[in-house]
C-alpha cells in the first residue's frame, strides 16, 4: 500500500516536473528555477553518495571490477547472518525462502556484473532533470550541490568561527557581503582571505559572468514538447504530436514507436495524420516517463550528456554518435521481451 502511494507520489512529481517543462516553453525564467531545484536533487544524492563512500565503489555507474571482487567476499560472510534471518522473516521455513537456497542465490548472484543501469537508477532518473543541472548555481535557491558544499563551508565556518566570528554563514550573507564589498571583502579589512571564501567567490563570479561554464558541460536545458495524449474510444490512446517530437529529437519516428510499444507492452498503429494510436489506456504522464527513458537511452550522449546526437545502424548494431563531443556509444536494440498471453483462452487455441 505504502509503496503504491510512494509510486504515485513519484509519478506526480514527474508530472509536475514535466508540466514545468511545458511552461518552460512559454516563460523560461520562471520554471528554470523549478527545474534547477528538481535537477539538483539528483545531483545532491550523487554528491552525498560520493562523499559518503569516497571510493569508486560508491558510484554505481562506473564499472569497477575490483568493486565486485570486494563485494564477493563480504557476501559469504553475510550468508551466515542471512541463514538466521531468513527463517525469521518467513515464519515457517518450509514455505518461504529456504536460507540454504538463499545462500546459493547470494553467492552466485554476484556473478552478474555491475550495472550500466546505475546511472538510470530506479527509473526515476530523468534526462531533463539531468540536463537541467547547470542551473544549480542559481543564487536565490541554494540547491543540492550547493547545499552540500555549503554545509561543508558552514562546518568550516564553524571551525573558523573560533578565531573569526565574522565569517559569513549562509550563501546569501556571503553574497551580500561580496556584492557590497563588506565584511572580509571590505577594502580596509586586513583579515586574510580563506581559501574557501575565495573559491566561493570564484564560483559566484563565474556563474554570474559565464553561467554556461559553471555547469559541467551541459549547456542548456533540453526541451521537447509534452506528448499530447487523447483517448480514442475506450481502449485506445492517441499520441498526437509524435512526429513533432521525433523531429525535435532528430530520430526516426519508427524507432520511437518501437520503443514505446516495447516499453508499454502493447501495440498500435499510425493513423493518416501521422498520429500514433496505442492500444490500451495511457495517460500523458505515463508516456512522458517512457519518452524520458527513451531520451536517456537513445538520445543523450554518454559522455557530455548532450542530446545533439545521431543514431546510426552499423551491421545490426545501433550506435549513438554525439555531434558535440564526437563520442560514440553502442545502444542496445529495442527488445519487446516476454509478452504474457492476455485475452481469452479460447481465442488463443483457435
Amino acid at each position, binding site marked *: 500500500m505504502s509503496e503504491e502511494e510512494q509510486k504515485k507520489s513519484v509519478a506526480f512529481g514527474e508530472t509536475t516536473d514535466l508540466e514545468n517543462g511545458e511552461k518552460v516553453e512559454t516563460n523560461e525564467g520562471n520554471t528554470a528555477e523549478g527545474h534547477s531545484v528538481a535537477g539538483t536533487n539528483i545531483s545532491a544524492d550523487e554528491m552525498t553518495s560520493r562523499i559518503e563512500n569516497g571510493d569508486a565503489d560508491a558510484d554505481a555507474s562506473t564499472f569497477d571490477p575490483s568493486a565486485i571482487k570486494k563485494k564477493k567476499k563480504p557476501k559469504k560472510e553475510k550468508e551466515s547472518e542471512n541463514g538466521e534471518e531468513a527463517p525469521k522473516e518467513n515464519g515457517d521455513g518450509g514455505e518461504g525462502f529456504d536460507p540454504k537456497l538463499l545462500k546459493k542465490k547470494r553467492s552466485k548472484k554476484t556473478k552478474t*556484473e555491475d550495472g550500466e543501469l546505475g546511472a538510470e537508477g530506479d527509473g526515476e532518473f530523468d534526462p531533463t532533470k539531468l540536463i537541467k543541472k547547470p542551473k544549480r548555481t542559481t543564487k536565490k535557491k541554494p540547491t543540492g550541490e550547493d547545499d552540500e558544499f555549503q554545509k561543508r563551508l558552514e562546518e568550516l565556518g564553524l571551525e573558523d568561527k573560533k578565531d573569526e566570528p565574522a565569517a559569513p554563514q549562509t550563501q546569501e550573507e556571503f553574497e551580500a557581503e561580496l556584492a557590497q564589498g563588506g565584511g572580509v571583502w571590505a577594502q580596509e579589512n586586513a583579515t586574510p582571505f580563506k581559501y574557501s571564501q575565495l573559491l566561493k567567490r570564484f564560483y559566484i563570479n563565474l556563474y554570474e559572468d559565464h553561467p554556461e561554464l559553471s555547469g559541467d558541460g551541459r549547456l542548456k536545458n533540453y526541451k521537447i514538447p509534452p506528448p499530447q495524449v487523447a483517448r480514442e474510444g475506450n481502449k485506445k490512446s492517441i499520441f498526437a504530436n509524435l512526429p513533432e517530437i521525433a523531429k525535435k529529437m532528430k530520430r526516426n519516428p519508427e524507432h520511437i514507436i518501437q520503443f514505446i510499444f516495447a516499453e508499454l507492452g502493447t501495440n498500435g498503429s499510425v493513423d493518416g495524420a501521422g498520429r500514433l494510436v496505442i492500444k490500451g489506456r495511457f495517460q500523458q504522464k505515463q508516456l512522458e516517463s517512457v519518452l524520458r527513458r527513451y531520451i536517456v537511452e537513445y538520445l543523450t550522449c554518454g559522455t557530455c550528456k548532450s542530446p545533439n546526437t545521431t543514431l546510426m545502424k552499423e551491421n545490426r548494431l545501433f550506435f549513438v554518435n554525439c555531434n558535440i563531443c564526437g563520442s560514440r556509444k*553502442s545502444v542496445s536494440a529495442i527488445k519487446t521481451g*516476454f509478452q504474457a498471453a492476455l485475452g481469452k483462452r479460447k481465442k488463443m487455441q483457435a
Partner: protein
Amino acid sequence: MSLDNLKSFDPFAETDGGDDKKDYIHIRIQQRNGRKTLTTVQGLPKEIDPKRVLKFAKKEFATNGSVVEDPELGEVIQLQGDQRQKISDLMITSMGIKKSNIKIHGF
C-alpha cells in the same frame, strides 16, 4: 579540507554502457482490461528457483501469479497487478541482486 572538486567528473572513465553482456532482469507491466495489470519478471539468474520466488512473492504481496515457461526466455514469473516496485525491492533486499541489474519497464 579535502579536494573534492578534483574528483567530480572523470571524462575518461568508462561510460555506463561499457559492456553489453549484462544479464538484466526485466520487470515489465502489461495492461489488461480496465484497471488491471500484469507484472512479468523475465531473466532471473539460473541459480534462483522461480517457483520459490513466486511462492514467497505471492504470500508477501498478497497476490496471485504463476511461472510461465517461455521457449526463448526460460521461466518467467507473472504476477497479478502492478508489483514492479515490490518485486524489485524484494530482489534487491533478500536475493542479493544488484539494482543495476534490474530494469523496470513500462510507464
